[in-house]
């Protein structure tokens, strides 16, 4: 059953994170790792938020807002996926699992691309605010002119709050169905989470923008793999 108070909570927090991403502060509360974890914390299922956030952090690592170019909206992807995963985990009553995290990312991972379209779609509204501010300044209404700046925030808040809330509701709705999926499909979904995480980490390697990124990434991967193998052999012995 959908818990509407959780839906509202996720919506409000998702809207605020959308503002933090672009309009206010930009202290990285809106980065996928933090945003998704905070959604999980708020709704009472930190683990789901954290692991969805980790994957999306790596996936969107190289995206940057340079000049007039708009990157994909990593925040709505993170809030949407984590809210759906948490809703799903809460409604199953069994907590988060890799299968649920994978399902949430498969369902809502594309929200990043949709978010970019929404951001672009909202730009003409801000242009109108800018023109209005200039017109008001010419009439000597200076305080009202500069305050136009703050009006640019509310459409972002409303749209992204609605999206995050909707994803939470879908998560709650989908949760009971997960139990009814055939076991091989659930196992496949559980295998999909690490597969997507490895793919996202590989994307992150390129997204690091480092020269010789392959060499640094390969060297670290080799060291980590060797340590892991050595540890497992030691445990076996």
């Amino acid at each position: 059953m959908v818990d509407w108070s959780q839906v509202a909570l996720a919506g409000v927090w998702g809207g605020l994170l959308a503002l933090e991403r672009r309009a206010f502060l930009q202290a990285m509360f809106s980065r996928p790792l933090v945003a998704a974890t905070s959604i999980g914390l708020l709704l009472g299922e930190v683990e789901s938020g954290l692991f969805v956030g980790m994957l999306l952090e790596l996936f969107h690592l190289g995206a940057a807002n340079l000049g007039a170019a708009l990157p994909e909206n990593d925040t709505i992807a993170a809030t949407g996926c984590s809210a759906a995963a948490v809703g799903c985990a809460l409604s199953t009553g069994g907590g988060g699992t890799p299968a649920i995290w994978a399902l949430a990312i498969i369902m809502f991972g594309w929200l990043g691309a949709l978010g970019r379209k929404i951001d672009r779609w909202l730009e003409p509204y801000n242009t109108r605010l800018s023109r209005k501010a200039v017109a008001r300044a010419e009439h000597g209404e200076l305080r009202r002119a500069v305050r136009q700046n703050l009006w640019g925030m509310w459409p972002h808040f409303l749209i992204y709050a609605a999206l995050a809330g909707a994803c939470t509701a879908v998560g709650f709705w989908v949760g009971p169905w997960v139990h009814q999926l055939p076991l091989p499909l659930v196992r496949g979904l559980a295998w999909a989470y690490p597969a997507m995480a490895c793919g996202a980490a590989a994307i992150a390697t390129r997204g690091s923008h480092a020269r010789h990124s392959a060499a640094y990434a390969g060297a670290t991967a080799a060291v980590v793999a060797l340590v892991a193998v050595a540890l497992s052999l030691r445990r076996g012995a």
Partner: protein
Amino acid sequence: MSEPPAGAAALAASPPPSPLPAMTLLRVFARSLFLQASWNPQGMQNLGLAYALFPALKALYPDPDRQMAAVRRHLAFFNTQPYMAAAILGGVIHHEARIARGEEGPEVVVGFKAALMGPLAALGDGFFWLSLRPALGAFCAALVPVLDAWAAVLFLVLYNVVHLTLRAKLFRMGLRLGDRLVEAVAHAHLPAWGARLRTVGAASAGGAVAYLAISLGANQGGRVGNALAVGYLALGVLAYWLTSKRFGNYALLYLAAGLAVAAGALL
């Protein structure tokens, strides 16, 4: 982050202190956090800049006509990296104070903004967006299996120690140094720090591939755990190769999911 020596020396050389009260400067700084609230393709950060500067302009120009002229010149096109904008804001107040005293004409502050916004944007984008954020993001994401939710806290703390310190320092530098802030910023060696951070990002992401493949593969795979771990590692390498061939990121993500779901369902 090393203190820019020339900047420190220049600060010590102390140009005249700002004529504005500390509370007004604090208000400008706080309002600068809303710099991009109405970002638009035409004027970009123009509204945000005028909004941030307004308390200072009001204090500097008691005459309504001069105040109006000052606000209007800051409603013109403006765009830079939002953190580096703190330096320009400080510099604009420095120049506006001189204009208010009649020591220079308004064209100087317009030229100051035009000259600095591009280079500072390039510097800030390169350091913050393309180096610090990806490096700390990859590093802390790789630490999730070890630190759990504290990895997100660590990310916030590490990022904002650098971000907020630099933002406040840049504002102060602009305020005191005006045009001379360029030298001070140049001595911070941000591009060199950026290159080192990008290396950290690449190495962390590589480590994350291996750790995730091995630990999650072993956990999920049961009797085929080792084979699954090797498969995930191979998938990571394949994914890296595909990104180098400009394969779409979303296509890659959903391809990985599809392969894994099919393998899990059929094996």
